[in-house]
Protein backbone atom coordinates (compact mmCIF):
# COMPACT_ATOMS: atom_id res chain seq x y z
CA UNK A 1 0.00 0.00 0.00
CA UNK A 2 1.33 3.35 -1.06
CA UNK A 3 -0.13 6.82 -0.60
CA UNK A 4 0.83 10.38 -1.33
CA UNK A 5 1.20 12.24 1.91
CA UNK A 6 0.16 15.83 2.60
CA UNK A 7 1.38 16.69 6.11
CA UNK A 8 0.11 20.27 6.20
CA UNK A 9 1.72 23.12 8.13
CA UNK A 10 0.51 22.05 11.55
CA UNK A 11 2.21 18.67 11.44
CA UNK A 12 5.50 20.47 10.92
CA UNK A 13 4.82 22.84 13.83
CA UNK A 14 2.45 22.63 16.77
CA UNK A 15 1.17 19.23 15.71
CA UNK A 16 4.54 17.60 15.09
CA UNK A 17 3.74 14.81 17.52
CA UNK A 18 0.99 13.75 15.12
CA UNK A 19 3.52 13.23 12.34
CA UNK A 20 6.00 11.69 14.75
CA UNK A 21 3.47 9.02 15.64
CA UNK A 22 1.75 8.65 12.28
CA UNK A 23 4.88 7.84 10.27
CA UNK A 24 6.20 4.93 12.38
CA UNK A 25 2.71 3.48 12.83
CA UNK A 26 2.06 3.52 9.11
CA UNK A 27 5.45 2.07 8.38
CA UNK A 28 4.89 -0.67 10.93
CA UNK A 29 1.68 -1.59 9.09
CA UNK A 30 3.47 -1.68 5.77
CA UNK A 31 1.92 1.51 4.46
CA UNK A 32 4.34 3.57 2.38
CA UNK A 33 3.89 7.34 2.44
CA UNK A 34 5.41 9.63 -0.19
CA UNK A 35 5.48 13.23 0.94
CA UNK A 36 3.96 15.43 -1.72
CA UNK A 37 6.59 17.31 -3.66
CA UNK A 38 6.77 20.99 -2.70
CA UNK A 39 3.30 21.02 -1.15
CA UNK A 40 1.93 24.35 -0.06
CA UNK A 41 -0.47 25.47 2.67
CA UNK A 42 -3.96 24.15 1.98
CA UNK A 43 -5.40 27.59 2.54
CA UNK A 44 -7.28 26.52 5.62
CA UNK A 45 -10.32 28.29 6.87
CA UNK A 46 -8.57 31.59 7.35
CA UNK A 47 -7.71 31.98 3.70
CA UNK A 48 -11.29 31.26 2.69
CA UNK A 49 -12.32 34.26 4.73
CA UNK A 50 -10.12 36.44 2.61
CA UNK A 51 -10.47 35.23 -0.92
CA UNK A 52 -12.33 32.12 -1.90
CA UNK A 53 -10.91 31.85 -5.41
CA UNK A 54 -7.34 32.08 -4.13
CA UNK A 55 -8.11 29.55 -1.45
CA UNK A 56 -9.34 27.18 -4.14
CA UNK A 57 -6.16 27.72 -6.14
CA UNK A 58 -3.96 26.98 -3.13
CA UNK A 59 -5.74 23.70 -2.49
CA UNK A 60 -5.91 22.81 -6.15
CA UNK A 61 -2.15 23.10 -6.58
CA UNK A 62 -1.72 20.30 -4.08
CA UNK A 63 -4.42 18.19 -5.69
CA UNK A 64 -2.78 18.72 -9.06
CA UNK A 65 0.68 17.74 -7.81
CA UNK A 66 -0.75 14.56 -6.31
CA UNK A 67 -2.52 13.72 -9.52
CA UNK A 68 0.65 14.25 -11.51
CA UNK A 69 3.16 12.46 -9.34
CA UNK A 70 0.81 9.85 -7.86
CA UNK A 71 -0.26 7.85 -5.97
CA UNK A 72 -3.57 9.61 -6.39
CA UNK A 73 -4.79 8.68 -2.92
CA UNK A 74 -3.61 11.63 -0.87
CA UNK A 75 -3.29 10.93 2.83
CA UNK A 76 -4.23 14.07 4.74
CA UNK A 77 -4.02 13.77 8.53
CA UNK A 78 -4.93 17.34 9.52
CA UNK A 79 -8.68 17.87 9.69
CA UNK A 80 -8.57 21.39 8.31
CA UNK A 81 -6.42 20.33 5.36
CA UNK A 82 -8.67 17.32 4.82
CA UNK A 83 -11.75 19.51 4.69
CA UNK A 84 -10.25 22.21 2.50
CA UNK A 85 -8.80 19.79 -0.04
CA UNK A 86 -12.04 17.82 -0.11
CA UNK A 87 -14.14 20.91 -0.42
CA UNK A 88 -12.05 22.22 -3.28
CA UNK A 89 -12.34 18.84 -4.96
CA UNK A 90 -16.15 19.08 -4.68
CA UNK A 91 -16.32 22.71 -5.72
CA UNK A 92 -14.24 22.12 -8.82
CA UNK A 93 -16.75 19.54 -10.02
CA UNK A 94 -19.86 21.33 -8.78
CA UNK A 95 -19.22 24.90 -9.84
CA UNK A 96 -18.03 25.81 -13.33
CA UNK A 97 -16.76 29.25 -12.28
CA UNK A 98 -14.44 27.78 -9.67
CA UNK A 99 -13.28 25.15 -12.12
CA UNK A 100 -12.42 27.81 -14.68
CA UNK A 101 -10.54 29.95 -12.16
CA UNK A 102 -8.56 26.98 -10.90
CA UNK A 103 -7.62 25.82 -14.37
CA UNK A 104 -6.49 29.25 -15.40
CA UNK A 105 -4.28 29.50 -12.33
CA UNK A 106 -2.78 26.04 -12.75
CA UNK A 107 -2.14 26.83 -16.39
CA UNK A 108 0.45 29.44 -15.46
CA UNK A 109 2.70 26.61 -14.27
CA UNK A 110 1.61 24.31 -17.10
CA UNK A 111 -0.26 22.21 -14.60
CA UNK A 112 -3.62 20.58 -15.08
CA UNK A 113 -6.05 18.89 -12.79
CA UNK A 114 -8.67 16.45 -13.97
CA UNK A 115 -10.14 15.60 -10.59
CA UNK A 116 -8.55 12.23 -9.96
CA UNK A 117 -6.99 12.85 -6.56
CA UNK A 118 -8.73 11.14 -3.65
CA UNK A 119 -8.32 12.97 -0.40
CA UNK A 120 -8.08 10.33 2.33
CA UNK A 121 -7.88 10.57 6.08
CA UNK A 122 -5.54 8.18 7.96
CA UNK A 123 -8.52 6.90 9.95
CA UNK A 124 -10.27 5.98 6.72
CA UNK A 125 -7.17 4.31 5.33
CA UNK A 126 -6.43 2.41 8.53
CA UNK A 127 -9.93 1.04 9.01
CA UNK A 128 -10.97 0.51 5.40
CA UNK A 129 -7.74 -0.16 3.48
CA UNK A 130 -5.41 -1.67 6.07
CA UNK A 131 -8.19 -3.31 8.04
CA UNK A 132 -8.79 -3.86 11.71
CA UNK A 133 -7.68 -7.49 11.49
CA UNK A 134 -4.22 -6.50 10.34
CA UNK A 135 -4.00 -3.84 13.03
CA UNK A 136 -5.11 -6.30 15.67
CA UNK A 137 -2.28 -8.64 14.72
CA UNK A 138 0.26 -5.91 15.42
CA UNK A 139 -1.03 -5.15 18.91
CA UNK A 140 1.57 -6.37 21.38
CA UNK A 141 0.57 -4.28 24.34
CA UNK A 142 -3.25 -4.04 24.43
CA UNK A 143 -4.56 -0.84 26.00
CA UNK A 144 -6.52 -2.87 28.51
CA UNK A 145 -8.36 -0.83 31.09
CA UNK A 146 -7.62 2.45 29.37
CA UNK A 147 -10.82 4.46 29.10
CA UNK A 148 -10.71 6.54 25.95
CA UNK A 149 -13.11 9.25 24.81
CA UNK A 150 -13.08 9.16 20.99
CA UNK A 151 -13.12 12.74 19.79
CA UNK A 152 -13.46 13.32 16.05
CA UNK A 153 -14.02 17.06 16.01
CA UNK A 154 -15.85 18.69 13.21
CA UNK A 155 -14.08 19.00 9.92
CA UNK A 156 -13.34 15.38 9.13
CA UNK A 157 -16.97 14.35 9.32
CA UNK A 158 -18.56 17.60 8.15
CA UNK A 159 -19.81 18.85 5.78
CA UNK A 160 -18.91 15.85 3.65
CA UNK A 161 -19.46 12.58 5.44
CA UNK A 162 -16.94 10.82 3.25
CA UNK A 163 -16.07 7.71 5.17
CA UNK A 164 -18.15 7.93 8.31
CA UNK A 165 -21.46 9.19 9.63
CA UNK A 166 -21.55 12.94 10.28
CA UNK A 167 -23.48 12.70 13.52
CA UNK A 168 -22.23 9.50 15.07
CA UNK A 169 -18.96 8.43 13.47
CA UNK A 170 -17.63 5.11 14.69
CA UNK A 171 -14.42 4.31 12.80
CA UNK A 172 -12.14 5.53 15.58
CA UNK A 173 -14.32 3.76 18.16
CA UNK A 174 -13.72 0.50 16.30
CA UNK A 175 -10.03 1.20 15.91
CA UNK A 176 -9.53 2.00 19.58
CA UNK A 177 -11.49 -1.07 20.61
CA UNK A 178 -9.20 -3.12 18.39
CA UNK A 179 -6.26 -1.76 20.35
CA UNK A 180 -7.89 -3.15 23.47
CA UNK A 181 -8.99 0.16 24.91
CA UNK A 182 -12.32 0.73 26.59
CA UNK A 183 -14.17 3.24 24.40
CA UNK A 184 -16.59 5.32 26.45
CA UNK A 185 -19.92 6.68 25.17
CA UNK A 186 -18.97 10.24 24.32
CA UNK A 187 -21.87 12.09 22.68
CA UNK A 188 -19.72 15.17 22.11
CA UNK A 189 -17.50 13.35 19.68
CA UNK A 190 -18.24 15.68 16.78
CA UNK A 191 -18.66 18.94 18.67
CA UNK A 192 -16.46 21.89 17.83
CA UNK A 193 -13.33 22.47 19.93
CA UNK A 194 -13.46 26.19 19.27
CA UNK A 195 -10.93 26.13 16.47
CA UNK A 196 -8.82 29.23 16.25
CA UNK A 197 -11.22 31.05 18.56
CA UNK A 198 -9.57 29.57 21.65
CA UNK A 199 -6.66 31.85 20.87
CA UNK A 200 -8.48 34.84 19.45
CA UNK A 201 -11.67 34.97 21.53
CA UNK A 202 -10.88 32.79 24.53
CA UNK A 203 -14.05 33.57 26.48
CA UNK A 204 -16.01 31.83 23.70
CA UNK A 205 -13.58 29.33 22.28
CA UNK A 206 -12.12 28.09 25.55
CA UNK A 207 -15.52 27.32 26.99
CA UNK A 208 -16.14 24.85 24.18
CA UNK A 209 -12.85 23.18 24.98
CA UNK A 210 -13.77 23.16 28.65
CA UNK A 211 -17.12 21.47 28.02
CA UNK A 212 -15.43 18.78 25.95
CA UNK A 213 -12.89 18.08 28.67
CA UNK A 214 -15.34 18.30 31.52
CA UNK A 215 -17.73 15.85 29.89
CA UNK A 216 -14.85 13.48 29.12
CA UNK A 217 -13.82 13.63 32.77
CA UNK A 218 -17.39 13.18 34.00
CA UNK A 219 -17.73 10.06 31.87
CA UNK A 220 -14.57 8.68 33.38
CA UNK A 221 -12.17 9.01 30.45
CA UNK A 222 -8.45 8.49 31.15
CA UNK A 223 -7.56 10.12 27.89
CA UNK A 224 -9.18 11.85 24.94
CA UNK A 225 -8.15 10.51 21.53
CA UNK A 226 -8.14 13.02 18.71
CA UNK A 227 -7.50 13.06 14.99
CA UNK A 228 -6.76 16.74 14.46
CA UNK A 229 -3.73 18.87 15.40
CA UNK A 230 -5.82 21.92 16.25
CA UNK A 231 -8.16 19.92 18.47
CA UNK A 232 -5.18 18.37 20.20
CA UNK A 233 -3.62 21.75 20.83
CA UNK A 234 -6.85 23.27 22.10
CA UNK A 235 -7.65 20.39 24.40
CA UNK A 236 -4.08 20.14 25.66
CA UNK A 237 -2.58 23.60 25.89
CA UNK A 238 -5.14 25.66 27.77
CA UNK A 239 -5.68 23.73 30.99
CA UNK A 240 -4.27 26.58 33.10
CA UNK A 241 -6.67 29.13 31.69
CA UNK A 242 -9.59 26.71 31.79
CA UNK A 243 -8.91 25.82 35.38
CA UNK A 244 -8.74 29.49 36.31
CA UNK A 245 -12.06 30.25 34.66
CA UNK A 246 -14.24 27.21 35.31
CA UNK A 247 -12.38 24.75 37.45
CA UNK A 248 -10.36 21.63 36.73
CA UNK A 249 -11.06 19.32 33.80
CA UNK A 250 -7.69 17.68 33.54
CA UNK A 251 -7.85 14.89 31.00
CA UNK A 252 -4.88 14.43 28.69
CA UNK A 253 -5.47 14.54 24.95
CA UNK A 254 -3.39 12.51 22.52
CA UNK A 255 -3.48 11.57 18.88
CA UNK A 256 -5.09 8.24 18.04
CA UNK A 257 -1.87 7.37 16.22
CA UNK A 258 0.03 7.77 19.49
CA UNK A 259 -2.30 5.25 21.12
CA UNK A 260 -1.73 2.92 18.19
CA UNK A 261 2.01 3.31 18.61
CA UNK A 262 1.78 2.47 22.30
CA UNK A 263 -0.28 -0.62 21.54
CA UNK A 264 2.29 -1.62 18.93
CA UNK A 265 4.95 -1.39 21.57
CA UNK A 266 6.78 1.80 20.57
CA UNK A 267 8.34 3.76 23.41
CA UNK A 268 6.36 6.95 24.27
CA UNK A 269 9.22 9.32 23.37
CA UNK A 270 9.35 7.91 19.88
CA UNK A 271 5.69 8.85 19.46
CA UNK A 272 6.09 12.48 20.58
CA UNK A 273 4.13 11.88 23.76
CA UNK A 274 6.60 14.03 25.69
CA UNK A 275 5.29 17.05 23.79
CA UNK A 276 1.97 17.09 25.68
CA UNK A 277 1.25 19.88 28.16
CA UNK A 278 -0.89 17.49 30.15
CA UNK A 279 0.99 14.23 29.94
CA UNK A 280 -0.73 10.94 29.59
CA UNK A 281 -0.28 8.63 32.52
CA UNK A 282 1.73 5.56 31.97
CA UNK A 283 -0.24 2.71 30.55
CA UNK A 284 -2.01 0.65 33.18
CA UNK A 285 -0.73 -2.48 31.45
CA UNK A 286 2.82 -1.31 31.99
CA UNK A 287 2.06 -0.79 35.61
CA UNK A 288 0.69 -4.28 35.87
CA UNK A 289 3.69 -5.64 34.04
CA UNK A 290 6.27 -3.67 35.97
Amino acid at each position, binding site marked *: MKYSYFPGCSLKGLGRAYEESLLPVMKHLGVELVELD*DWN*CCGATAYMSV*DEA*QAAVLAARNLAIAEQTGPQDLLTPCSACYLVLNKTQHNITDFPDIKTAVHRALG*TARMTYSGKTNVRHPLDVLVHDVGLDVIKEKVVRPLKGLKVAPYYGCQVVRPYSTFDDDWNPTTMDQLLATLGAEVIHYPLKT*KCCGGSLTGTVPE*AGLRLTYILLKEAARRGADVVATICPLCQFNLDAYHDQIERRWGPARVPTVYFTQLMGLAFGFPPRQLGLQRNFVPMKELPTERVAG
Partner: protein
Amino acid sequence: MQIKRTIKYEADRVRGFSKEIMSVSGCEQLQSCIQCGTCSGTCPLSIYMDFSPRQVMAMVRADFKNEVLTSTTIWLCASCYACTVECPRKIRITDIMYALKQRAIQEGIYPRRFPIPVLAREFSEMVRRKGRITETLLVMRLFLKANWRAVFASWRQGLGLIRTGRFVLRHERIERRAELDAMLATVGDGKAGGKEAS
Protein backbone atom coordinates in the same frame (compact mmCIF):
# COMPACT_ATOMS: atom_id res chain seq x y z
CA MET B 1 -30.68 54.49 31.03
CA GLN B 2 -29.45 54.57 27.51
CA ILE B 3 -32.02 54.02 24.82
CA LYS B 4 -31.48 53.20 21.20
CA ARG B 5 -33.63 53.67 18.16
CA THR B 6 -33.74 50.47 16.19
CA ILE B 7 -36.09 51.29 13.35
CA LYS B 8 -34.82 50.61 9.85
CA TYR B 9 -35.70 52.70 6.83
CA GLU B 10 -35.65 51.60 3.24
CA ALA B 11 -32.55 53.69 2.73
CA ASP B 12 -30.72 51.45 5.17
CA ARG B 13 -30.98 48.57 2.75
CA VAL B 14 -28.28 48.00 0.18
CA ARG B 15 -30.26 46.73 -2.75
CA GLY B 16 -28.72 43.82 -4.57
CA PHE B 17 -26.67 42.63 -1.61
CA SER B 18 -28.74 39.48 -1.11
CA LYS B 19 -28.50 38.74 -4.82
CA GLU B 20 -24.74 39.17 -4.67
CA ILE B 21 -24.38 36.74 -1.78
CA MET B 22 -26.77 34.23 -3.28
CA SER B 23 -24.82 34.31 -6.53
CA VAL B 24 -21.76 32.91 -4.77
CA SER B 25 -21.34 29.27 -5.77
CA GLY B 26 -23.46 27.11 -3.50
CA CYS B 27 -25.18 29.94 -1.68
CA GLU B 28 -28.34 30.21 -3.76
CA GLN B 29 -30.24 27.93 -1.38
CA LEU B 30 -30.49 30.89 1.01
CA GLN B 31 -33.69 31.74 -0.83
CA SER B 32 -35.31 28.71 0.79
CA CYS B 33 -34.59 29.72 4.39
CA ILE B 34 -37.65 29.29 6.62
CA GLN B 35 -36.07 30.86 9.70
CA CYS B 36 -36.38 27.71 11.76
CA GLY B 37 -33.32 28.48 13.86
CA THR B 38 -31.64 25.09 13.50
CA CYS B 39 -28.42 26.88 12.56
CA SER B 40 -28.45 28.95 15.73
CA GLY B 41 -29.51 26.05 17.89
CA THR B 42 -26.78 23.83 16.57
CA CYS B 43 -24.06 26.49 16.48
CA PRO B 44 -21.66 26.12 19.41
CA LEU B 45 -20.83 29.83 19.27
CA SER B 46 -24.22 31.41 18.60
CA ILE B 47 -24.47 32.14 22.31
CA TYR B 48 -21.73 34.76 21.93
CA MET B 49 -22.98 36.39 18.75
CA ASP B 50 -24.73 39.74 18.53
CA PHE B 51 -27.04 38.33 15.89
CA SER B 52 -27.80 34.64 15.67
CA PRO B 53 -26.91 32.91 12.41
CA ARG B 54 -30.63 32.72 11.63
CA GLN B 55 -30.92 36.47 12.03
CA VAL B 56 -27.92 36.97 9.79
CA MET B 57 -29.64 34.88 7.11
CA ALA B 58 -32.73 37.06 7.41
CA MET B 59 -30.68 40.25 7.31
CA VAL B 60 -28.78 39.14 4.23
CA ARG B 61 -31.99 38.25 2.49
CA ALA B 62 -33.42 41.66 3.33
CA ASP B 63 -30.31 43.48 2.02
CA PHE B 64 -29.09 44.85 5.38
CA LYS B 65 -25.49 44.78 4.28
CA ASN B 66 -23.95 47.15 6.79
CA GLU B 67 -25.63 45.52 9.76
CA VAL B 68 -24.43 42.09 8.67
CA LEU B 69 -20.87 43.03 7.85
CA THR B 70 -20.36 44.81 11.16
CA SER B 71 -21.83 41.98 13.21
CA THR B 72 -19.57 39.84 15.37
CA THR B 73 -21.44 36.77 14.14
CA ILE B 74 -19.49 36.24 10.96
CA TRP B 75 -16.18 36.41 12.84
CA LEU B 76 -17.26 34.04 15.56
CA CYS B 77 -18.02 31.30 13.09
CA ALA B 78 -15.43 28.59 13.73
CA SER B 79 -16.25 26.75 10.48
CA CYS B 80 -17.38 23.58 12.21
CA TYR B 81 -20.09 23.13 9.54
CA ALA B 82 -22.66 21.90 12.07
CA CYS B 83 -25.25 24.36 10.71
CA THR B 84 -24.57 23.39 7.10
CA VAL B 85 -25.05 19.73 7.87
CA GLU B 86 -28.16 20.22 9.99
CA CYS B 87 -29.98 22.85 7.93
CA PRO B 88 -33.30 21.38 6.78
CA ARG B 89 -33.17 23.54 3.66
CA LYS B 90 -29.63 22.49 2.73
CA ILE B 91 -28.33 26.04 2.97
CA ARG B 92 -24.54 26.15 3.02
CA ILE B 93 -24.47 28.55 5.94
CA THR B 94 -20.75 28.21 6.58
CA ASP B 95 -20.04 29.19 3.00
CA ILE B 96 -22.34 32.18 3.33
CA MET B 97 -20.36 33.20 6.40
CA TYR B 98 -17.18 32.98 4.32
CA ALA B 99 -18.74 35.10 1.60
CA LEU B 100 -19.67 37.68 4.23
CA LYS B 101 -16.20 37.65 5.81
CA GLN B 102 -14.60 38.22 2.42
CA ARG B 103 -16.82 41.19 1.77
CA ALA B 104 -16.20 42.63 5.20
CA ILE B 105 -12.45 42.40 4.65
CA GLN B 106 -12.71 43.86 1.16
CA GLU B 107 -14.75 46.78 2.43
CA GLY B 108 -12.75 47.13 5.60
CA ILE B 109 -15.83 47.42 7.77
CA TYR B 110 -15.16 44.64 10.22
CA PRO B 111 -15.12 45.36 13.96
CA ARG B 112 -11.81 47.12 14.68
CA ARG B 113 -10.21 45.64 17.71
CA PHE B 114 -11.39 42.17 16.82
CA PRO B 115 -8.44 39.84 16.25
CA ILE B 116 -10.02 37.34 13.89
CA PRO B 117 -10.08 39.37 10.69
CA VAL B 118 -6.49 40.32 11.45
CA LEU B 119 -5.61 36.66 11.82
CA ALA B 120 -7.26 35.85 8.50
CA ARG B 121 -5.31 38.58 6.78
CA GLU B 122 -1.99 37.75 8.40
CA PHE B 123 -2.55 34.12 7.56
CA SER B 124 -3.14 34.77 3.88
CA GLU B 125 -0.22 37.17 3.82
CA MET B 126 2.14 34.52 5.18
CA VAL B 127 0.85 31.91 2.77
CA ARG B 128 1.34 34.28 -0.12
CA ARG B 129 4.89 35.01 0.89
CA LYS B 130 6.09 31.60 2.07
CA GLY B 131 3.59 29.10 0.69
CA ARG B 132 3.25 27.60 4.13
CA ILE B 133 2.31 28.62 7.63
CA THR B 134 4.54 28.60 10.67
CA GLU B 135 1.95 28.76 13.42
CA THR B 136 4.06 30.14 16.20
CA LEU B 137 5.29 33.00 14.06
CA LEU B 138 1.78 33.65 12.85
CA VAL B 139 0.47 33.88 16.38
CA MET B 140 3.25 36.28 17.35
CA ARG B 141 2.44 38.56 14.45
CA LEU B 142 -1.21 38.37 15.36
CA PHE B 143 -0.57 39.36 18.95
CA LEU B 144 1.64 42.23 17.90
CA LYS B 145 -0.96 43.64 15.57
CA ALA B 146 -4.18 42.94 17.41
CA ASN B 147 -3.40 42.99 21.06
CA TRP B 148 0.17 43.06 22.25
CA ARG B 149 -0.88 42.73 25.86
CA ALA B 150 -2.08 39.20 25.05
CA VAL B 151 1.52 38.19 24.55
CA PHE B 152 2.04 38.58 28.26
CA ALA B 153 -1.20 36.81 29.10
CA SER B 154 -0.01 33.83 27.12
CA TRP B 155 3.59 33.73 28.25
CA ARG B 156 2.95 30.55 30.16
CA GLN B 157 1.85 28.84 26.98
CA GLY B 158 4.80 30.12 25.05
CA LEU B 159 7.09 28.65 27.66
CA GLY B 160 5.20 25.39 27.44
CA LEU B 161 5.65 25.26 23.71
CA ILE B 162 9.34 25.83 24.04
CA ARG B 163 9.56 23.17 26.72
CA THR B 164 7.69 20.63 24.58
CA GLY B 165 9.75 21.46 21.53
CA ARG B 166 6.88 22.81 19.54
CA PHE B 167 7.97 26.44 19.33
CA VAL B 168 9.20 26.73 15.79
CA LEU B 169 10.98 29.91 14.75
CA ARG B 170 12.35 28.75 11.44
CA HIS B 171 10.04 29.71 8.58
CA GLU B 172 8.45 26.84 6.72
CA ARG B 173 8.46 27.65 3.03
CA ILE B 174 7.97 26.02 -0.33
CA GLU B 175 10.51 25.79 -3.15
CA ARG B 176 8.56 27.09 -6.10
CA ARG B 177 7.26 30.30 -4.60
CA ALA B 178 7.20 32.11 -7.92
CA GLU B 179 4.98 29.44 -9.35
CA LEU B 180 2.48 29.87 -6.54
CA ASP B 181 2.65 33.64 -6.90
CA ALA B 182 1.78 33.45 -10.55
CA MET B 183 -1.12 31.15 -9.84
CA LEU B 184 -2.57 33.39 -7.17
CA ALA B 185 -2.15 36.42 -9.40
CA THR B 186 -4.60 34.97 -11.91
CA VAL B 187 -7.45 35.23 -9.47
CA GLY B 188 -8.31 38.45 -7.71
CA ASP B 189 -5.75 41.24 -7.37
CA GLY B 190 -3.37 39.01 -5.47
CA LYS B 191 -3.55 41.44 -2.63
CA ALA B 192 -6.88 40.72 -1.03
CA GLY B 193 -7.10 42.33 2.33
CA GLY B 194 -5.68 45.49 0.91
CA LYS B 195 -5.33 48.93 2.23
CA GLU B 196 -7.52 48.71 5.33
CA ALA B 197 -4.65 46.85 6.93
CA SER B 198 -3.65 49.52 9.41
